[in-house]
C-alpha cells in the first residue's frame, strides 16, 4: 500500500500542525472508513426508522440481523480475502496481470455460490418468517461475502479515495431505500441494506473491470496448490473467527442473551459496549496506516532492494536495523495514541454513556473493551509486519492462539461471573499481541539468515 503512504507523506511535507492533522485525518478516513461508515449508517437507519414510526422491536431485529450477516460473511470470506490478495500480488509480481480478472470472478463465484449453497438450507430451515424475509437474509449474506472480496481487492489497487467515496454513496443509497421502504418494517430495512451493498459490489466491480485487463472470463488458478497458500486461507478464517467467537458465545449462552428473531439471539449487556468501543480505534488505525504503510513499507522495500542490488552485508544489516526501527516506532506510536484514547475514555466514559443514553452499569465492560480493541490494533500492526516478511507460519500460529484463547477465556469469564465479562477477550488479544511481539522480534533477529538460507 505504498501509494497511500506517498500521498500522506506529501501532505506531511507541508510541515504544519494543520497538515499533520489533515494527514492523520485522511488516513483515519481511509483506514477506518469502511467499518465506521457501515456502523454509522446502520445506526442511522435504526434511529431514522424509529422516527418514521417503525416499531423498536423491528429495528432491534434489523440491527441484530445485520450484525449476524456481517459476522457470518466476514468469517466465510476471510480466508478467501487473504489467499486471493496474495495470489493477486504474486501474479502482479510475475507480470501476469491478465490472469487476475478471470480469477477474481472465479473467487467471487466460489465465495458467493458456495455461501449460497451452504447458508440457504439453515436460513430456510431455522427462520420461520415469510419466504421474502428468508430470501432477503440470504441475498444480503451472499452480496456481503462478495463485497468483502471486491473491497480487499480494490484496497490492493490502492484506490482508497474511490473506496471511501463509493462507500459514502452506497450507504446513502442504503439509507434512502431503507427509509423509503420502512413501511414494510424489518423487510424494508433489510431491502435498503441490500440495495446499498448491492450498489457497492457492482460499482466496485465496475471500477475493477475497467482498470484491469483480462484474457478470459473465468479461471480457478488461485485454487492451484502450487500457486496459492492455503495457510493464508486458514489465517483469514481464524482471524475473523477469533474476533467474533466471544460475541457468539455471549449470544448463545442462555443467561447472557435473549432471543431476537428466529434462531438469532443477542446479548444486550455484551454487545453495546464492545461495538461502542470499536469506534475508538480510529486514532490507532490512522497511525497504523501512516506508520506501517508509509514508513515501514518504505524501509522494507529498501531492505530487500539492498539485498537484490548487491549491497554489502554491512549495509544490508543497516537497512535491516532501519526497518526494525520503523516497525518498532510504528508499534510504539499506536501504543501511545491508543493509550491516550484509553485514558480519555476512562476520564469521560461515564459522561459519554450517559449522553447517548446507555446505562452506567455497562461502564466497566466498556473500559475493558476499549483496552482490548486498542490492543487489537497493535495485534493487527504486528500481523501486518509479519505479512510483509512473508511469515505465514508465524501468522497462522498467532491467529490460532487468538482464536483458541478467546474461546477458552470467554468461557472462563462466564464461569467467573459478570464482573469479569470482557476480560476474556482482553486477555486473549493481549496474550496474542505479546506472542506476536515475541515472534516478530525473533523473526527480525534471524531475518538475513532466513532470507538468504531458507528461501525457495
Amino acid at each position, binding site marked *: 500500500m505504498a501509494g497511500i503512504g506517498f500521498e500522506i507523506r506529501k501532505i506531511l511535507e507541508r510541515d504544519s500542525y494543520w497538515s499533520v492533522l489533515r494527514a492523520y485525518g485522511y488516513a483515519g478516513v481511509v483506514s477506518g472508513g469502511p467499518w465506521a461508515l457501515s456502523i454509522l449508517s446502520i445506526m442511522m437507519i435504526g434511529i431514522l426508522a424509529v422516527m418514521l414510526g417503525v416499531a423498536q422491536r423491528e429495528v432491534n431485529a434489523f440491527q441484530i440481523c445485520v450484525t449476524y450477516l456481517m459476522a457470518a460473511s466476514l468469517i466465510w470470506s476471510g480466508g478467501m480475502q487473504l489467499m486471493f490478495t496474495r495470489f493477486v500480488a504474486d501474479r502482479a509480481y510475475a507480470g501476469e496481470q491478465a490472469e487476475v480478472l478471470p480469477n477474481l470472478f472465479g473467487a467471487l463465484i466460489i465465495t458467493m455460490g458456495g455461501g449460497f449453497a451452504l447458508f440457504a438450507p439453515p436460513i430456510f430451515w431455522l427462520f420461520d418468517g415469510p419466504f421474502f424475509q428468508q430470501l432477503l437474509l440470504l441475498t444480503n449474506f451472499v452480496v456481503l461475502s462478495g463485497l468483502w472480496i471486491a473491497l480487499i481487492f480494490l484496497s490492493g489497487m490502492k484506490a482508497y479515495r474511490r473506496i471511501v467515496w463509493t462507500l459514502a454513496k452506497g450507504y446513502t443509497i442504503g439509507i434512502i431505500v431503507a427509509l423509503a421502504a420502512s413501511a414494510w418494517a424489518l423487510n424494508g430495512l433489510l431491502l435498503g441494506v441490500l440495495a446499498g451493498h448491492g450498489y457497492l459490489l457492482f460499482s466496485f466491480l465496475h471500477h475493477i473491470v475497467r482498470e484491469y485487463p483480462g484474457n478470459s472470463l473465468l479461471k480457478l488458478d488461485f485454487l492451484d496448490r502450487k500457486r496459492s497458500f492455503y495457510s493464508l486461507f486458514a489465517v483469514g478464517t481464524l482471524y475473523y473467527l477469533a474476533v467474533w467467537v466471544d460475541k457468539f458465545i455471549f449470544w448463545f449462552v442462555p443467561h447472557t442473551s435473549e432471543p431476537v428473531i428466529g434462531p438469532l439471539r443477542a446479548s444486550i449487556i455484551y454487545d453495546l459496549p464492545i461495538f461502542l468501543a470499536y469506534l475508538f480505534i480510529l486514532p490507532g488505525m490512522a497511525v497504523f496506516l501512516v506508520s506501517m504503510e508509509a514508513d515501514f513499507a518504505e524501509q522494507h522495500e529498501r531492505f530487500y532492494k539492498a*539485498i537484490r542490488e*548487491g*549491497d*554489502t*552485508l554491512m549495509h544490508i544489516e543497516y537497512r535491516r536495523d532501519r526497518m526494525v526501527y520503523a516497525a518498532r516506532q510504528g508499534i510504539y506510536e499506536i501504543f501511545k495514541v491508543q493509550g491516550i484514547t484509553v485514558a480519555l475514555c476512562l476520564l469521560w466514559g461515564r459522561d459519554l454513556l450517559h449522553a447517548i443514553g446507555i446505562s452506567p452499569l455497562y461502564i466497566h465492560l466498556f473500559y475493558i473493551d476499549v483496552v482490548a480493541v486498542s490492543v487489537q490494533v497493535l495485534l493487527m500492526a504486528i500481523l501486518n509486519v509479519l505479512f510483509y516478511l512473508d511469515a505465514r507460519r508465524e501468522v497462522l500460529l498467532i491467529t490460532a492462539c487468538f482464536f483458541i484463547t478467546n474461546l477458552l477465556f470467554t468461557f472462563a469469564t462466564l464461569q467467573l461471573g459478570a464482573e469479569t465479562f470482557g476480560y476474556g477477550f482482553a486477555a486473549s488479544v493481549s496474550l496474542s499481541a505479546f506472542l506476536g511481539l515475541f515472534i516478530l522480534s525473533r523473526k527480525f533477529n*534471524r531475518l*538475513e539468515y532466513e532470507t*538468504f*538460507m531458507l528461501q525457495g
Partner: protein
Amino acid sequence: MVEQVKADFLEANLSAARSGERTVADIGLLLEGTYPYIRGGVSSWVHQIISGLPDIRFAVVFIGGESGMYGPAQYQFPPNVTHVETHYLLQGQTNSKPGARRGNARAFEKMEALHAYLRREGEMPGEQLERAFTGLGSPEGISEEDFLYSKASWEYITHQYRRRCTEPSFINYFWAVRAMHAPLFVLARIARELPPVRAIHSISTGYAGFLGAIIQLRRKIPFILTEHGIYTKERKIDLAQATWIRDHNDDVCNTLHDEMGYIRGLWIRFYEQIGRMAYAHASPIVSLYEGNRLRQISDGAEAEKTLVIPNGISVQRYCVALEKRVNEIPPVLGLIGRVVPIKDIKTFIRTLRILANERPDVQGWIVGPEDEDPSYVNECKELVASLGLQNSVKFLGFQNVLEILPQLGLLVLTSISEALPLVILEGFASGVPCLATDVGSCRELIEGRGEEDRGLGAAGSVVFIADPEGTAKAARQLLDNPERWRAAQRAGLERVKRYYDDKLMFSSYRNLYQQALDRDSEGFAELSGAT
C-alpha cells in the same frame, strides 16, 4: 567415531580386495564432462584405453553439469566396462524443503582450519583435517542440509565475507560460495556410494580429480591421475573471460584499478585448491608431454610422482597411407584441423601468399570441419580472395586423413595452443614431415624428447606463432631440399614407431594399473595384518 571411520576403511578394502567378485571393476574411471557423452580427443583416448586393455574391468563414472546438457552415449561400451554411473553436479541431491536448523558448529570450525590450510600454498592438511574433509555430506561432518540451511553455515559464510571479501555485493558472494560448494556434496555422495573398485583413475583434475582425492582418503585405494590438458589453467582462462561473474569495477576508475574482482579470484583459487588436493592424493600423476609435467609441478604436484605417457596411434593403420605415396615430394602444404581461431588458419593463408611469390606451384589445403565458427570460416575465405590465392588455397572440409595424407608434402600446424596433436603422429606414420608452432608438445614431437630421441633427428621444423615469413622460409627449406625432406620423413617414421605406438601407451597403462592393483592387495594385506 574414529573406530567407525577405521571400520569403514577396513570394510571397503576387505570387500574390494578379498575377491574379484566383490568388486564391480578393477579400475574406476572418473570422467568429467567427456566420455561417453561428449565426442572429442579425450573421449577417443578413453575409449582407446578401455578397448586396448580388454582383460582389465572398468567402471565408468561420468560427472556432468546438468542432465539436459548431454545427449545419448556416443560410444558403444566394450565388454570390459562392467559398471556405469552418471552423475550431475548442478542437480543437488536434496529435495528437502529448506528448514531452519542449527548445524554442527564444530564441523564448521574444522572447516575453517581446512580453508586456512588451503589458502596457504604448499603443505597439505594433516589427518585430523582430512577427516573434516571426508566427513563432507555425512552426519558427523557437514551435511548438505547443514551447508544449505543451517545457522552455523550462515555464521560461517558471513564471517568469511566480513573478513575477506573485498567486493561490495554480498548476494554475489553468497551465491558464488553456494555454487562453488554445492557440487562437493554430490561428489561426497558419489564417493560414499560408488560400489567397491580396486583402484581409481581420474582423467582430469577439477571435480573428477577432487572426487578421486575423496575416494582415496575414504577407501585408501590407489588413485591414478592423468591430465590431457591442464584443467586448472583452462578453467582460469574460462574464468578470466566469464561474463556471468560481474566484476565490481566502476566505469569511472576502470583505468586506474582493473584488478580482477574478488569473486572471479575466488573461483580461480577454488579450482587451484581442488586441483592441489587431487595432486596431493594421486600417484602417479601422468601428463602427455614434458611441458605439462613441469606445469603440474609448478601447480603443486610432487615431482617424484609425475611421469609422462604420450598418446599413441596405431602405426600399422597408417602403413596404407605410407605405401600410397609417390616418389616425388608433392608441393602441397596441408593443415588438418577444425577451422577455428585457435588453429590460426589466417597465418597459414598468409604463409601461402609468401610461398606463392617464390614457388607458384605450391598448394595449401585446409582439411577440417567448418561448422564450429562460421564467421571465422568466412573471414578466412575472404582473406584467401583478397590475397588472390583462389587457385592455390583450397578448403576441403572434413576428409578421411588416410586419403589426404599421402597427397601432402608437409603437414602444417599454425595453432596458438595445442596439447599433443595426434595429427602430427598420423602424419609421421604416413611419411609426412611437419611444420608446427612451438606450443604444447610440438617441439618434443618434431625434435625429440631426451638424448636418444633427439638423436633420430628433426622430423620437420618448429616455427614461431603468427610468423608467416618464418613458416614460409621453413617450408621452402624442406620442400626445396629433397635430402633434408627425406631425412625428416625418416626421423618422423622412426620416432612414431619407437615412442608413439599405441602399443607402448597400452603397455605403460597396463603397468600402471598392474602396480596400482598390486598396491591395493598389499594395502589389504597390511590392513588385515593390523587387525
